[in-house]
């Protein structure tokens, strides 16, 4: 996959994490997903159509998803409630918007859709593209680095 299709997702994810969540997420090693299954426990998925087509999925483990909800809304949550699901959907929506803005810089126009959210571990998901899914892990601290407690947000996408 051309680097110009990868960078928009990196820039978008880091911008959104910094601005909306106040975290500096460190990108880990990109990987090709060998199985079409969700990377975390809560996964927001959005299709991208227009000059190109693709899919982006934002996936977090339960702890990370609850952190995102608490940081965005300022309320604690005990479990992956409808509120948490909604928050992950909105984060997916915003990352998709930022990525589309970055693609526009390369004269690639893409349209938005309404995201859907899957709750569950290793749920099968089939992307509309034929090429492999790239998985970018972004690591962040839950407590501003005062412990070694790290969580991960996966940005998985396929784009052609």
């Amino acid at each position, binding site marked *: 996959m051309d680097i110009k299709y990868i960078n928009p997702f990196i820039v978008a994810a880091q911008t959104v994490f910094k601005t909306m969540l106040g975290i500096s997420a460190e990108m880990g090693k990109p990987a090709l997903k060998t199985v079409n299954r969700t990377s975390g426990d809560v996964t927001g998925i959005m299709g991208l159509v227009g000059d190109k087509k693709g899919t982006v999925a934002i996936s977090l483990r339960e702890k990370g998803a609850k952190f995102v909800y608490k940081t965005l*809304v300022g309320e604690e949550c005990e479990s992956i409630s409808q509120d948490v699901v909604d928050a992950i959907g909105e984060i997916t*929506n915003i990352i998709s918007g930022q990525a589309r803005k970055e693609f526009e810089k390369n004269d690639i126009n893409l349209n938005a859709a309404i995201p859907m959210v899957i709750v569950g571990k290793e749920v099968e998901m089939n992307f509309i593209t034929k090429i492999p899914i790239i998985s970018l892990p972004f690591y962040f601290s839950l407590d501003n680095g005062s412990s070694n407690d790290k969580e991960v947000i996966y940005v998985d996408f396929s784009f052609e």
Partner: protein
Amino acid sequence: MNVLVVDDFATMRKIVRNVLKQIGIESVVEAENGKMALDVLKREEIDLIISDWIMPEMTGIDFLKACKSDDGIKNIPFLMVTAEAQKGCIMEAIKSGVDNYIVKPFTPDKLQAAIEKAKARIGK
């Protein structure tokens, strides 16, 4: 001051509510899409509209156009708060009469500044 917040995501409605609360605005009415928002405008006096773009039933841009073509509500300041950051979208909103356009992600300061500007415009 009564603010109408329109977004299909409850999370974003809560975030906007929190920002409004920080600047002393507690009177907030929520709607999940443009159609529901138009119903609210029929029965409540609203001083400021804060709306998303992509929503089911009626999008934010269609809602904006409906507001600006109705003499009874066209003067209510309309802030678009959306993930749609492409130039074409921003231009369409400006042409349709939007008062301010804020791209998600945003910092609370940015939204507060836009709200304060709208408040000053309507003298509240």
